[in-house]
């Protein structure tokens, strides 16, 4: 399924994507390492194998566009422009994390780059997206809001209610379904009626497009065209990106529900390798490509060291930012 379309593509653009994908990969590997070292004690959901979606979607968003994500949100957040130092500190629960270590991996967020948060509740970000897009419309801004969620999320009510909402109010929302075939240990095809996300969105009046989520070039093109339609005021769109989760569901998932051979086979369509191949065939110097990998690893190793060395948040943080009225610093009981 490797895209052969190298004509008309902007090599610099692809290189940017390639570098970003490596940064995501290296970030996830560092996060897994942190879990192994018991520096992260909660759940980590790595996005290894799905980096083309994060890159292809987020590099097409403006920095003032908004984004919401799921439990598997590191890649999206990084791609939207968040600082990996802050992110890794957040994962390790340290001061200097985006949320002072109060949210952690499942709630990774960086509002300064328009990333309104990962979410621990499958599907919950869909409504938040609809609402953010609603606000944007009320405020007559030309920003758009993107929501990324998994193929498991399309069986929850918000998929219907939130997408319907976006149609009814003709909102500037881009919905992206990362269809990796699984919801935790369950094959989504076994729990999903009909033809899946695209068909459901169409029935709700949302035009949708299905692309190979491991082919950065296809995603990049699809997202670009879809976003320009959304920004032009044509209402919401859905993009379904077919992919495969190369790692376990969480860092501690023994992953016994998939055949090893299936996973190994899937590695052959690793989106980073795919894009690397395209670039190589386009005669990009291999050193540049290799540097993306090594630079990313160097960067994320430093990020990891920084986070390890960072201090815990001061205990007073526990009582901050709950609410103004009825603030627990005045009355916690």
């Amino acid at each position: 399924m490797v895209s052969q379309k190298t004509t008309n593509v902007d090599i610099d653009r692809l290189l940017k994507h390639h570098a970003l994908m490596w940064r995501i990969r290296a970030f996830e590997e560092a996060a897994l390492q942190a879990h192994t070292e018991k520096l992260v004690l909660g759940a980590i959901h790595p996005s290894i194998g799905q980096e083309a979606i994060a890159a292809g979607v987020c590099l097409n968003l403006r920095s003032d566009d908004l984004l919401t994500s799921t439990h598997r949100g590191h890649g999206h957040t990084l791609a939207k422009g968040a600082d990996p130092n802050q992110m890794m500190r957040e994962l390790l629960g340290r001061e200097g994390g985006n949320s002072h270590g109060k949210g952690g991996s499942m709630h990774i967020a960086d509002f300064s780059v328009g990333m309104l948060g990962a979410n621990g509740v499958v599907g919950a970000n869909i409504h938040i997206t609809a609402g953010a897009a609603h606000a944007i419309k009320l405020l007559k801004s030309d920003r758009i809001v993107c929501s990324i969620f998994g193929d498991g999320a399309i069986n929850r009510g918000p998929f219907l209610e939130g997408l319907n909402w976006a149609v009814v109010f003709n909102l500037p929302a881009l919905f992206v379904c990362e269809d990796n075939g699984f919801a935790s240990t369950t094959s989504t095809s076994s729990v999903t009626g009909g033809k899946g996300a695209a068909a459901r969105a169409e029935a709700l009046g949302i035009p949708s497009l299905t692309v190979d989520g491991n082919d950065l070039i296809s995603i990049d093109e699809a997202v670009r065209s879809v976003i320009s339609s959304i920004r032009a005021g044509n209402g919401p769109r859905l993009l379904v990106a077919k992919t495969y989760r190369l790692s376990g569901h969480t860092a501690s998932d023994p992953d016994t529900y998939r055949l090893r051979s299936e996973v190994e086979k899937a590695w052959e369509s690793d989106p980073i390798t795919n894009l690397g191949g395209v670039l190589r065939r386009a005669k990009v110097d291999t050193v540049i490509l290799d540097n993306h990998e090594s630079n990313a690893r160097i960067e994320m190793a430093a990020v990891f060291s920084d986070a390890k060395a960072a201090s815990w948040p001061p205990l007073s943080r526990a009582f901050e930012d709950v609410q103004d009225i009825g603030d627990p610093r005045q009355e916690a009981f």
Partner: protein
Amino acid sequence: MTTMTYADAAKQALTEEMRRDPTIWALGEDLGRGGVFGQYQGMAEEFGPERIADTPISEAAILGAAVGAAMSGTRPVVEMRFADFALCAIDELVNQAAKARYMFGGQTKVPLVVREPMGMWRSSAAQHSQSLESWYTHIPGLVVVCPSTPHDNFGLLKSSIRCDDPVVYMEHKNLWALEGAVPDCDPIPLGVARIARTGQDLTIVSWSSTCHEAMLAAVTLEEEGLEAEVIDLRTLWPWDKRAVLDSVEKTGRLLIAHEAVQVGGFGAEVAATVADRAFSSLRAPIKRIGAPRVPIPYAPPLEDLLRVTPERIAAVARELTR
């Protein structure tokens, strides 16, 4: 100073706030035609369908969208129609609205008001009559308001709209038509109780519709020579502990009356707080009067059996002061 109904007082407050701040908007089912209780009558005409937004029957999306909209520069006022329907949107309220500011370490705030008309309303039965205010007091991040008079509905709704926190705003359906004076006043601060009546002999704490029953009971008791102090909490989180503790320190006797199921009701929180912090002032057991742990029945005589009436309140007050 004008006389208006509880419903109109809220409409007046919302209208004034919407005129003041263009980022405020209201959303819910049937708002364009005034809302099911007429609380939005005429507002779509003034503010247009964008700011008085008719929504699909999608409570979860209504509340969830309000969260996203509140994080993105607007101040939504959400109409849930009946508090019972908010049960279709609890993830959005409790896991999202209440926690977002904290989980994101203060990167955002969620300034929204959720209007949840509560309580018994003749023969509305089990799914249209609940009083679940105590649930929300248990959730960090939420402010909980239960106005009992037109004046309070005006002033507290204003404060709730101006508040940067998610506010669960529970109007009592039985009070819509209640008339009362609404002075041209500033917003009423959240978290401050109203001493509805002063007295030396016992303290009656209440909120929402039941305050009126407590006041009626106090009149009866006065005729019998008992002076009850009646406190209308108005806001359940934060609640005015000082007002209650001061009163109990004076009277030595506490009775809490509310319409909600007594077990797990907010009366328990008031009682437990007083049993801790004003223990030495107590001269009698703390009494609570709430509904039995029974769903609300439809037939009027059965429904009436579950009500907290002035008679029940007065009877327990007598018992307490005997």
